[in-house]
């Protein structure tokens, strides 16, 4: 599980300091603090960024929104944004709203509020609303990562690292090459959200990353994965083998 990379765009040092403190305390990884538009663009493109926290006004100008608009034009580069603002000026809000999806937070804010706003930004961005505070789910699935709420903060797991998923009631055990952890999500939901070409169901309780398969032992109904993990292949799901181009 990795920390979430956050880019902060904020020109007031005291405020950015407070923000950095709150976020690092909650295991977020700050990739940079930009105080101008250009700086922000440079930091955004030179780092892996998961969430951007943007102060709407930089040096009295709504450059924060301009930044968001610039990013918005470039396809596939958009990330979840959290706008910070002092005023509820309608015009600014209307403009910010154009960069959909749109999450904002009024200053002053407390620790809980900024964490909540970050979670909301992720939920809205990946269009999986009401996840992190529900009692039956704590994971948002994006196209390349799982965003998992652990205690107060978010963590992420790269989907490519997942070997297989083992389902136990309402929980899913995520097994990567290095770790094993539990997330709260239903089997049906996670199957729906994962790429069906990559993740195949081999058993009532197993979903396997097909890229990690080393060997299929049909006689033993076994699938051997990287790191010598063994997964059961049940009769019911045997035809999934047909999906793979098997070398003979």
């Amino acid at each position, binding site marked *: 599980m990795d920390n979430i990379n956050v880019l902060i765009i904020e020109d007031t040092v005291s405020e950015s300091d407070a923000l950095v403190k709150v976020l690092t305390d909650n295991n977020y990884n700050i990739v940079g603090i930009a105080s101008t538009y250009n700086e922000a663009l440079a930091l955004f493109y030179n780092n892996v960024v998961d969430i951007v926290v943007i102060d709407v006004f930089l040096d009295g100008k709504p450059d924060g929104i301009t930044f968001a608009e610039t990013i918005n034009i470039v396809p596939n580069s958009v990330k979840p944004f959290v706008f910070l603002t002092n005023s*509820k*000026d*309608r015009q600014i*809000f*209307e403009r910010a*709203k154009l960069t959909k999806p749109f999450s904002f937070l*009024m200053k002053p804010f*407390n*620790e*809980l*509020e900024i964490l*909540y706003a970050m979670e909301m930004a992720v939920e809205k961005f990946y269009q999986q*609303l*009401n996840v992190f*505070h*529900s*009692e039956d789910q704590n994971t948002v699935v994006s196209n390349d990562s799982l965003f998992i709420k652990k205690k107060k903060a978010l963590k992420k797991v790269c989907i490519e690292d997942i070997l297989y998923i083992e389902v136990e009631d309402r929980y899913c055990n995520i097994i990567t090459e290095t770790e094993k952890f539990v997330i709260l999500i239903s089997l049906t939901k996670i199957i729906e959200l994962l790429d069906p070409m990559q993740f195949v169901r081999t058993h009532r309780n197993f979903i396997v990353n097909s890229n990690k398969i080393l060997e299929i032992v049909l006689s033993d109904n076994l699938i051997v994965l990287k790191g010598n993990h063994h997964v059961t292949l049940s009769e019911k799901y045997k035809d999934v083998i047909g999906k793979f181009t098997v070398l003979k």
Partner: protein
Amino acid sequence: MINRVLTTSLLLFSLFVFSQTHLQKENLMSTAIKVKAQKFKENTNFYKAQNFFLQNNWDSTLVYSMKEINESRNKEILDYCHYFRAISFKEKKLLDESKKELNQISSGFPFSYKVKMKLGEIALSKNNFKLALQYFHETEKLTNKQLYDIKFSTVLHNIGLCYLHLENYEKAEEYLFKSAKRQEIEKDTVLLIGSYMDIATLYYQQYKDNQAIPYFEKAYRLSQKAKSLELKQNATLNMAVVEENRKNFPLALNYRKEYEKWKDSLNDQNKVWAIADLEKKFAIKQKQKEVDILEAENKIKAAERNGFLASSILLLILFGTGIYFYRQKIKKNRIILKQKNELDELNATKDKLFSIVSHDLRSSVNALKTSNGKLIENLKSKNFTELDTLLHTNSTIANSTYNLLDNLLNWALLQTKQSYFFKESLHLASIVQHVEYNYKPLMLSKNIGFKNEVAKSEYVFADTDSLKIIIRNFLDNAIKFSKENGLISIYTRTSTEEYCYLVIEDTGVGMSENTISDLLKDTMLLSKKENDDIIGTGLGLQLCKSMIYKNGGSLEIESKENVGTKIIIALQKFKNHG
């Protein structure tokens, strides 16, 4: 004297001959003409000519027959046309022209005996007696049957007349008697009178007075019965002349008088006709004038009526628009008045708010000032325990002042509708937690217990900031009115399909029923709370109420004095989520 008599009878006869022609025209000839007309229907000129001929319209007959003669080559038609013209000329007393036309008629014409007859009549009229006699004799030779519609008696009479004029009295006598006899048989009174008169004249000219006078008298007596005024006149004149010659002057005078009478009546009749005609014309003119006047009057009336109509419509429109604008003005005035009242009220509210807020700010800043003074003193005296409490007091004052200012700002934004308002799905428990987070130290310092038992499954559909403002204000109030060791709990009640009920309960001082109803009143008027030692304006509650309504929710308050207060906020649920 004899000459006079002769002239009279001649006059009489020429007339007589013509009238006879006239009488004869109906019957066979006209039927023949009608048949021809049907036959030559396409020859419009001929058709018209015959039509006019039968109607005795001589001039038109002449015109159309001439046209027909110029166009047509049909011998039959030409004969008829010439005949029409001859008769027309004759009627118009143009005897020479008539004679010419008659001579142009071919021998094959079925009515050639009539032509002879006419020629004879013309010759007679022109006193060419021998020629006339020749024509009449030719006619006489024809049998009765060949003569068709000409009365043989007339022919005989005319011959007799010719002889009379030629002074061949014997022949004349013979023919006239023959004629008279026939007429007596035919009972043709008019002709008979003529015959009698002619016979009388015959005798009279031979000075056979005794034979002449009875005929004159006979003629006279018959003429009494006859209708023709001319006949009467002539007969009477003859009697007068006879009596005069007999020297019987009184009788002659009587006859003369009678003659004059007939003459007069004849003239009278003509005059009457003429006058009637004139009168008729005059009457027509008069009528025409009247009609003209009436028309003119009608025109004037129509014009007047139109004018009246137009002006009344114009007036009506003017009146209508006038009323419309007047009503508009009244409406506007009413609206303006209403708005003015509203504005006055709002202005008063604003002024009041202004004074209360400034008073509150003044007192809190003043408290800070004094507190800061004490702080400096205590710092000098290094009284650190006192320093700590003073700082805490300062912090509390600053917090409440900040809250007041925040509410003021939000109130202003709400009033001017400048604030951004966006409803979305919100996790109610988290929002409550966020608000509560800021009050934790305060509650701790006041030793107030707090429980957040909001159901984790509740999602509401509201604007984040306004919901936070609402919860903050109620929580603030709850803390304010709570005693030491009190308990504040926020929880949700069983929700309905539409609404989620958030309850903020405290064990504070509570409120009376009156206070509750005052607070829930819709008026914007703010009232200074009775609880004077606690800072507050009532602005917070008004703000909350407005914001709850704006979020589509509602507010209820349950409270008991010295027991506690329950604030129940109904919020719209987020529909996509259980």
